[in-house]
């Protein structure tokens, strides 16, 4: 059986600065992997390469066996056509630190856009699905509200519903609670936990160590553009093998 996600020797440069220096990672259906590490370690960049929000210069990323973003024809590596990349992006769903809801659309409208325009559903069908997912994140009663009328936590839950309604094979969470007031963090984490219990495959970049510990089947510690250490959360948090991870855990709150 092919892995859901297969990353091999991923290299990413901004100009001359190499931010990913050869990352390997594989993931099976149903895995929940948290990526931790200090800022600038490359964890968000790695996530953004998976859905081609960032270009990368070396290595391959495959989802369900199909190579993402690039193809090699006659020994020459080149970017796939934009239409193909757009289609591949729909294999994954992404939630962002800043929510990035479309401010001119209602909560339901945000969720429906991709269903209607990408999945080519009828508006009625899309509305039904949008309402199902808004209900799932506890916001059915807010479906006709605009993002400006919602709290940060509510906006993030709508953003998660928008991504998940597209039925992605893999969900990417990019520091989804970092922009939230402390009292709103939990409602978002509960939604993600619920998805994990449903068997959704997820890659989660987070600074919430307690959450990573509880929800993950595996944890990856990124350090200076490489994977510094990885393993099950129990070993990682309680018995770190590397100096760097022990150091990092000491400076982060685990409560």
């Amino acid at each position: 059986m092919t892995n859901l996600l297969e990353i091999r020797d991923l290299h990413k440069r901004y100009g001359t600065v190499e931010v990913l220096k050869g990352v390997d990672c594989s993931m099976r259906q149903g895995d929940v992997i948290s990526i931790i590490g200090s800022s600038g370690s490359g964890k968000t960049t790695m996530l953004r390469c998976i859905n081609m929000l960032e270009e990368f210069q070396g290595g391959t990323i495959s989802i369900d066996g199909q190579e993402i973003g690039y193809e090699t024809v006659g020994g020459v590596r080149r970017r796939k056509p934009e239409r193909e990349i757009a289609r591949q992006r729909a294999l994954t769903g992404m939630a962002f630190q800043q929510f990035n809801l479309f401010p001119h659309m209602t909560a339901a409208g945000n969720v429906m856009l991709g269903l209607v325009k990408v999945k080519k559903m009828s508006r009625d069908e899309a509305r039904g699905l949008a309402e199902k997912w808004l209900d799932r994140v506890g916001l059915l009663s807010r479906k006709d509200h605009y993002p400006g009328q919602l709290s940060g936590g509510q906006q993030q839950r709508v953003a998660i519903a928008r991504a998940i309604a597209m039925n992605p094979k893999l969900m990417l969470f990019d520091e989804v609670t970092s922009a939230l007031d402390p009292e709103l963090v939990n409602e978002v984490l509960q939604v993600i936990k619920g998805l994990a219990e449903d068997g959704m495959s997820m890659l989660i970049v987070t600074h919430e160590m307690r959450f990573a510990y509880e929800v993950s089947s595996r944890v990856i510690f990124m350090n200076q553009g490489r994977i510094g250490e990885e393993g099950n959360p129990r070993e990682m948090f309680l018995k770190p093998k590397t100096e760097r991870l022990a150091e990092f855990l000491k400076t982060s709150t685990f409560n």
Partner: protein
Amino acid sequence: MDFGFLDQLWVARIPLLKGLGVSISISLLSIVAGTVLGIFVGLALIYAYRPVQWLVRGYTDFIRGTPVLVLVLASYYVLSTVGIDLGPFQAGVLALAVFCSSHVGELVRGALQSIPKGQTEAAKAIGLTFPQTFAYVLGPQALRQALPAWVNTAAEMVKASTLLSIIGVGELLLRTQEVISRTFMSLEFYFFAGFLYFVVNYGIERFGRYVERKTAVPS
């Protein structure tokens, strides 16, 4: 014989009304043409290939740095020397449309650039292609953003239409001057013309407010 202003106004009603009609046609045509052209200018300023961008940037900077009157005169007198023979009305509308396009282009560019990057990224993340992203995410937000300034530009075009009197287009100002040269009631008729321009621009402004209200996003 002592004709009062109202009598003179009645006598001059037909040329003045026709003048007003011509002013409105000039404004409408140049706003519509200038806006359509300006949207392409704005898009080119952001999305075109580098050399095209520089070219369009040069175009807008040059046009915006030139007085409208000079554009009007150039359009009428200079174009004819290179074999493009336009009537005063056509030449004038062309000049105003070009002027309008450079302003609308800047408005469109500014509006699009004010939209956070995250919007495009979120649209990409759900699998929208670029044309779809533009049509459903960026475009609607940019339109709302640009609307107030666009209304302002439209009102400016109405005012700029008076410059066409210089090249002999029979719009409201020229007709008014003709009436004045016959009646010597300069104060009254200039005031009257000013009042008509005000009514047109006030109408545009009210209409802009109305559209703004209609398209406002609740928050």
